[in-house]
């Protein structure tokens, strides 16, 4: 067996195995879980946060979380979706901050904001690392500009196979030819 040309394969560690990708997948599932909770139990969440009357807002935020989570999990380059999560975190923090005045559950809100701040830090770190990874990948471009596969420049090879006769079952109907060749 000729193995002279063997083993030029890349054995570098693949992107999907890296810790940042595992973190991204974890955050994606977290997003979907939180989104489902907001969609399915908005009354309980609003009660716990002292924000009764905001149930529809919570449902909308839940929908956003689920969309972002699906985007992160299904994309091979999820940094854009991860930055979307960061934007969502900012919106969530602003909403919670606005709801602290005259709130009977201030302690719960403070706890939620602290937890959210922690997740935001993780989101930002993850998004930055994914950005860096994608930039690095784009910088490494192999040069294939000479791989034509043709013996002469493509312009000179245009129509070189015109001796080939298209089988009858694959031809454009005669009646349509004047238009297509016009």
């Amino acid at each position, binding site marked *: *067996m*000729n*193995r002279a*040309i*063997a*083993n*030029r*394969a*890349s*054995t*570098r560690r*693949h*992107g*999907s195995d890296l810790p940042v990708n595992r973190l991204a997948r974890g955050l994606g599932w977290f997003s979907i879980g939180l989104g489902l909770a907001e969609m399915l139990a908005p009354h309980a969440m609003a009660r716990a946060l002292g924000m009764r009357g905001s149930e529809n807002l919570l449902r909308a935020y839940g929908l956003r979380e689920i*969309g972002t989570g*699906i*985007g992160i*999990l*299904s*994309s*091979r380059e999820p940094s854009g979706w991860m930055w979307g999560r960061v934007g969502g975190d900012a919106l969530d923090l602003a909403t919670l901050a606005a709801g602290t005045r005259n709130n009977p559950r201030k302690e719960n809100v403070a706890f939620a904001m602290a937890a959210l701040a922690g997740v935001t830090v993780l989101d930002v770190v993850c998004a930055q690392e994914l950005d860096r990874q994608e930039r690095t*990948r*784009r910088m*490494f*471009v*192999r*040069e*294939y*500009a*000479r*791989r*034509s*596969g*043709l*013996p002469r*420049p*493509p*312009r000179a*090879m*245009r*129509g*070189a*196979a*015109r001796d*080939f006769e*298209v*089988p009858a*079952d*694959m*031809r*454009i109907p005669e009646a*349509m*030819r004047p*238009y*297509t*060749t*016009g």
Partner: protein
Amino acid sequence: MKALCWHGRNDIRCDEVPDPRIEDPRDAIIRVTSCAICGSDLHLYDGFMPGMKSGDIMGHEFMGEVVEVGAANTKLKVGDRVVVPFTIICGECDQCRRGNYSVCERTNRNKAMADKVFGHTTAGLYGYTHLTGGYPGGQAEYVRVPYADVGPVKIPSGLTDEQVLFLGDIFPTGWQAVVQCDIAPTDTVAIWGCGPVGQFCIRSAILLGAKQVVAIDRVPERLAMARAGGAITIDLEEESVIERLNDLTGGKGPEKCIDAVGMEAHATATLDSMYDRAKQAVMLETDRPHVLREMIYVCRPAGVLSVPGVYGGLLDKIPFGAVMNKGLTIRTGQTHVNRWTDDLLRRIEEGQIDPTFVITHRARLEDGPDLYKTFRDKRDGCVKVVLQP
């Protein structure tokens, strides 16, 4: 023997499996000398193709040396070098006699299942879903070739494996995709996807005399390879595909459009791509047909859509109203490989094309599982992987 086996989504392993043996007098056993990973193998790898079983041997693009021949096989003899087309054909049924080899009526041994799913059976395929027969594939040291007195193509000694290996699939697939466009010298041919099949579509369109060939992708090195083959390129992440195609055709759209992408179109920033991703993620849609929608929209009225890209099941939100009102012709199907092999082998021998241009990675069979991932993720400039058992 060693073989690359499917064990589930993203799980291909190099296993030790029993050697194949002659099961029918028309069979032959081939010692595989070269095989390749095809883009359509990735649909199995990614778990989008139904009907796979754990332990199935992968691979439908392979060639090798005949080491054993069944008693009724008078075409081959031990020692012959052959390329084996990925479609298994009997050569005798109504469809084979018409040259419609990829819909051979006899070779799918799970015909009843295919009848139920597709309405009528299609040909058996190597290393693919059990819907197409579940035949063990050629990413292995040895492979059993059924109906070996019909399908395999004998190779003259002066040609290397790498020159002819792709006669088994991607070269005829790209060729047929363009042939069924019935190219006129005034045509603009737009090709979505600059993977291996897209690259052969580009060269075929040039050789068959298209006025202008436009290739669409997002991977820089694949776009560079497309330009090398004579295409004008559109980076779908940098510019609007539809605007650019209309600009290149005086606002009229390309006459011929080829989908060399298939069911796993990359999610672009378009609304329909995100819709497909979301629906597929929650299993409400099997395929992501963004390219089909874009082709239907931009194609010139009375034009032709050619679809060599593989689709597996149910597609959502296809603007069929536009297909009907614009009078578009759709031609698709698995490739009738044997219809083209003699002619394409001659063109390789004459030096009209050298198919080795597309090979970017060579490795041992044992490295296959890693290479599946590299190819799927388009990393390390990977366009085409050739493995040597």
